[in-house]
């Protein structure tokens, strides 16, 4: 099984969010996903990066965001880690509940779960790590991977 992994350590800025999204788009395209899937993957990564920069590290310049992409035969795996206090998963309301529909925030993790095949969220006192998995299938499975 071939594996490709690349990671970045980024500042807690809005530029990091845009950079994470752009890198995810590039990685997903190179992995052979179609345009719709590329948009979903890059959007999920953007939302995770927003959580890391805004809610996790709270734009603290002393705290970093780690972004890693790993390509296996079966999956594209993206891991995003912040150095915040750790997200409280029980405090995230259901954005689809009627009483929450008109809330102006709280949809990021819902969108991430909607767009990715697997999502693992690991909060700790040292920060939150979120692992996003998209299965390679169809044309993507026989695409760039086959030539590596």
């Amino acid at each position, binding site marked *: 099984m071939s594996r490709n992994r690349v990671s970045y350590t980024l500042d807690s800025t*809005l530029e990091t*969010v845009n950079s994470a999204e752009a890198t995810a788009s590039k990685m997903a395209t190179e992995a052979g996903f179609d345009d719709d899937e590329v*948009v979903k993957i890059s*959007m999920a990564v*953007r*939302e995770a990066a*927003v959580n890391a920069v*805004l809610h996790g590290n709270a734009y603290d310049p002393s705290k970093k965001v780690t972004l890693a992409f790993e390509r296996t035969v079966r999956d594209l795996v993206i891991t995003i880690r912040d150095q915040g206090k750790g997200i409280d998963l029980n405090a995230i309301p259901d*954005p*689809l509940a009627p009483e929450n*529909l*008109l*809330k*102006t*925030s709280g*949809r*990021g993790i*819902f*969108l991430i779960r*909607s767009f990715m095949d697997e999502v693992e969220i690991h909060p700790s006192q040292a920060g939150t790590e979120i692992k996003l998995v998209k299965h390679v299938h169809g044309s993507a499975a026989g695409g760039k991977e086959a030539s590596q």
Partner: protein
Amino acid sequence: MTMKASTRQVDGVTIVDLSGRITLGEGSVILRDTVRELIGKGNKKILLNLGDVNYIDSSGIGELVSAFTTVRNQGGELKLLKLTKKVHDLLQITKLYTVFDVKDDEAAAVKAFGR
């Protein structure tokens, strides 16, 4: 790829033509400021033309919701016009498609505002 917003008046309705991305940061701020300015000037019938908006993130969705409630709380109406497929799909999965009044035709949208 910044967002741009321009406004025009058609039969008492303010149409806001938006283009680009409505995302955390500049795009969301431009939308917020535009709607607040319109409300401040007494424009209470607002039609957001999203035909050239190719990307919205969760912050942008939140800003659309905020615009909707802000206008409604002032006794006005806010409708959406010409959603791209990506934006349409986003509003579907977040169940907001049923919250917003979404139109495809500008003339019909303008007529749909209360008199």
